[in-house]
């Protein structure tokens, strides 16, 4: 429901909104070929990290997720690590 962006913290750590890294670097296209960059957005199990972890904006989170899926299809990134 209420997304706390800069609002007062409700227990836990105070919220600090960091700008999305792609927005900051003005990335127009999240390239699936740049798999080493995409590694930052997957867990050590190979799963796509949640937005609250990656700190990406909705648009770039979506684009990063699709890029990861494309990279997986081309065996640049694993579907699953340590099976």
């Amino acid at each position, binding site marked *: 429901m209420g997304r706390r962006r800069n609002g007062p913290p409700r227990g836990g750590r105070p919220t600090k909104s960091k700008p999305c890294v792609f927005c900051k670097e003005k990335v127009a296209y999240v390239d*699936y070929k*740049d798999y080493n960059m995409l590694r930052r957005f997957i867990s050590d199990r190979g799963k796509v990290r949640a937005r609250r972890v990656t700190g990406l904006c909705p648009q770039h989170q979506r684009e990063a997720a699709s890029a990861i899926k494309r990279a997986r299809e081309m065996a640049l990134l694993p579907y699953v690590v340590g099976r």
Partner: protein
Amino acid sequence: MAREADTRPEEANIDTYEAMLIVIPELDEEQVENTVGRFRTIIERTGGEAGEPNHWGRRKLAYEIDHRTDGFYVVMEFTAGERTLVELKRILRVSDDVLRHMVVKLPPSYAHKPLPETTEVTA
């Protein structure tokens, strides 16, 4: 056809596509070049324009495909004629020396970005 031109204000802007292929590791560099050359011919024969292929070299796959652990990666940009995509995809699908392929449309704003460093793995 006329309708398509209406929906696209800049008709002169031809879409650029990018194909990535994983060629089986059993071939040698020269055979890979030949294979890629075949696809370039297909693109050009069907009215497209094929760019210079970018050979990433032999790389380890993130997971096994058809009991193979590595393959030659080739990335190529091209523009498509009317039949190019259909024909290219059809041939790619039936080619035994291509493990995987992917064709994506590049956004018009996307300029040639530096590609990730080619990490050559010889298994």
